[in-house]
């Protein structure tokens, strides 16, 4: 097969991004029909680096550029550059639907973060949580805000009276534990990191006391782990509180199974990597493919965990992913209806 070089840029060092890359590389390496070199470049979370990397890839004359972006505005620039150079631009993970030239990209594949937050909100609502500590990811990052928005929307859709409509609340936030009878939130940021989340949670427990809250939403699993530790070290039982997470890593499957955590959303980077692999292959072969899609989210909670255990998508174990994929336990084909089209891009 013809040799192709793919420039792959990830915004930051992140196990999520790294696993996506690993899956892509593993699938391409074991596929005799393709002969790809994948140049991976990782940034430190700044927008200029993304631009520079794309520019350098163009200079290096790669056949395709795949990017996990920093932000949509910058991605718009990158798509333009790639288009000018006649190189396809594949975008993953974070939505750039707001970019005016988003449709010039060769693909978008990424989870629906609002939906992810929505599942958490729904679960919290169902289990009667009314005073929730919301531990956000990096302040100012789109996906973190989206998860908070989804969480509030779930309450809104269930007719709970809120301080304001969900979009406003998510944008304005509030300080301290504040809200209505139906839902009060305490906003803080753990920066996606375990230790910050733990520190925040420890301080918040100091302030609110054991009865000052009845639920905690940790927007990813490392932060959730820090939250659990903070609760335990404060002499509290995590089972007494509603606990929800994002990510749905292997470790949290077990937490859900053990009842430590009430729910999580399985959102494995493997599906993105797999989809990218399929799209690249189709692109190089000159075939049509679904270009703008959300992979499916698996909402796991204490009631359905045993049922869906086998079909959960591994988050960090490459061999297990490939094994489950080969055994047909998980859906990975981008043409499967479980993968939904991005709104406005069908």
């Amino acid at each position, binding site marked *: 097969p013809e040799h192709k070089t793919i420039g792959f840029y990830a915004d930051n060092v992140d196990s999520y991004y790294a696993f996506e890359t690993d899956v892509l590389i593993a699938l391409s390496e074991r596929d005799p029909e393709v002969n790809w070199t994948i140049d991976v470049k*990782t940034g430190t979370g700044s927008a200029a680096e993304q631009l520079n990397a794309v520019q350098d890839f163009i200079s290096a004359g790669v056949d395709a550029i795949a990017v996990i972006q920093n932000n949509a505005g910058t991605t718009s620039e990158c798509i333009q550059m790639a288009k000018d150079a006649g190189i396809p631009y594949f975008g993953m993970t974070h939505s750039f639907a707001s970019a005016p030239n988003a449709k010039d990209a060769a693909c978008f594949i990424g989870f629906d973060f609002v939906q992810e937050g929505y599942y958490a909100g729904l679960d919290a609502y169902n289990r009667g949580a009314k005073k929730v500590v919301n531990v956000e990811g990096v*302040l100012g990052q789109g996906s973190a805000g989206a998860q908070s928005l989804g969480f509030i929307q779930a309450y809104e859709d269930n007719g709970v009276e809120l301080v304001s409509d969900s979009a406003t609340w998510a944008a304005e936030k509030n300080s301290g534990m504040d809200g209505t009878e139906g839902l009060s939130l305490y*906003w803080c940021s753990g920066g996606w990191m375990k230790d910050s989340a733990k520190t925040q949670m420890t*301080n918040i427990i*100091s*302030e609110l*006391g054991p009865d000052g809250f009845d639920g905690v939403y940790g927007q990813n699993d490392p932060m959730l782990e820090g939250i659990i530790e903070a609760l335990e070290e*404060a002499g509290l039982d995590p089972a007494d509180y509603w606990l929800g997470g994002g990510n749905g890593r292997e470790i949290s499957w077990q937490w859900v199974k053990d009842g430590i955590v009430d729910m999580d959303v399985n959102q494995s980077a493997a599906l993105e990597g797999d989809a990218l692999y399929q799209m690249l292959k189709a692109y190089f072969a000159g075939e049509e493919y679904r270009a703008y899609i959300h992979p499916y989210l698996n909402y796991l909670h204490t009631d359905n965990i045993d049922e869906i255990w086998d079909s959960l998508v591994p988050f960090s174990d490459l061999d297990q992913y490939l094994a489950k994929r080969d055994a047909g336990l998980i859906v990975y084909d981008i043409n499967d209806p479980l993968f939904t089209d991005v709104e406005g891009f069908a």
Partner: protein
Amino acid sequence: MSDIRKHKEKKSFLIFKKNSDLQTVSLVTVAFVIAVVIYQLIAGVSKNGVVAFPSLLYPSNILNILIQATPVGILALGMTAVMLAGGIDLSVGMMTSMFSMFVAKVVMHGGMHIGWALLLGIMICITLEIIMGAIISVLNVESFIITLGGQIACRGIGLLITRSQEVAMDKQHLGWLKENLFDLINPEGIKIFSRKLQLPYYVLIFVALTIITWALLKYTRFGRRIYAVGNNPQAAYLSGINVRSTKLLVYIFNGLCVGIGATTLLTRVGTGIITVGQNLEIDVIAAVVIGGVAMSGGKGSVMGAFIGSILMFTISNAMTLMGIQSEWQYVVKGLIIIISVAGGALSHLFSTRKAVRQQKAAL
């Protein structure tokens, strides 16, 4: 004998000069705590109508602050020595990350015993510091830029070790380090204000290391020479002090502190990942400088750095307790750093003037 009495008397005249920095950081800390306590009392009364004990001063919360300050505090000890000797080390944050990734990797994937892994990790930190320290001291180049290079290189090494992945450790590996000392007294845990008291072993390491470093800097030949080297390396050399080896030793000591500090951080975090130590050096340097150590070397103390680290974490803790949004936390933290340094300079100015005026009056 009369000489000695005179000595005691004169000291008071000089005290503002010699200790003003330690005074400033203590003052800022106390002022900050009082302000928060007052706020909490008023807020408590206006909300619930009763006077409540301010949560900042809950014993459990004070211990929390100590716990949170531990890694930065330990790193600040080494940084204090480095800065007293006239240098700086920007690599400590990324070295911490690298350490955590190394230890997690060899333990989880290499099957090494945790004890050996920690020892090896500390040795690696020391080795890297020796390399940087040797370049700095032998070639007499800016420590800022050499350790900046070290910072970037450490990031690369760390990422190479785990191939940019994060490696989670199991509880049993480092759990012993964070066992709660109060559990020894009462396995059920001790509660005050219905908050459980926490005091992990590693906090004791922090406290012990602080005392050792304090004695080292204040009462040993090595310590006194660090001050001399930082104050005037040329004069130190001509006074027979081996400037190079003093600087090198300081970096070795710093490597040790980084290793130990990184161990406590890894214990807390439980995962080897590049973000563990990201921007840590900024917190560490800020703590040291707030504590009164001069960037130009030769002036300051470990106690200042200790209080400095506590202050840094008291700020974020108190802001969270007061429910202030994290955006504001940055603004306040930035301002407090500026105020404590500018305030130190101001008070120094005033006290000098006052001393001069008093003297004039006495004449």
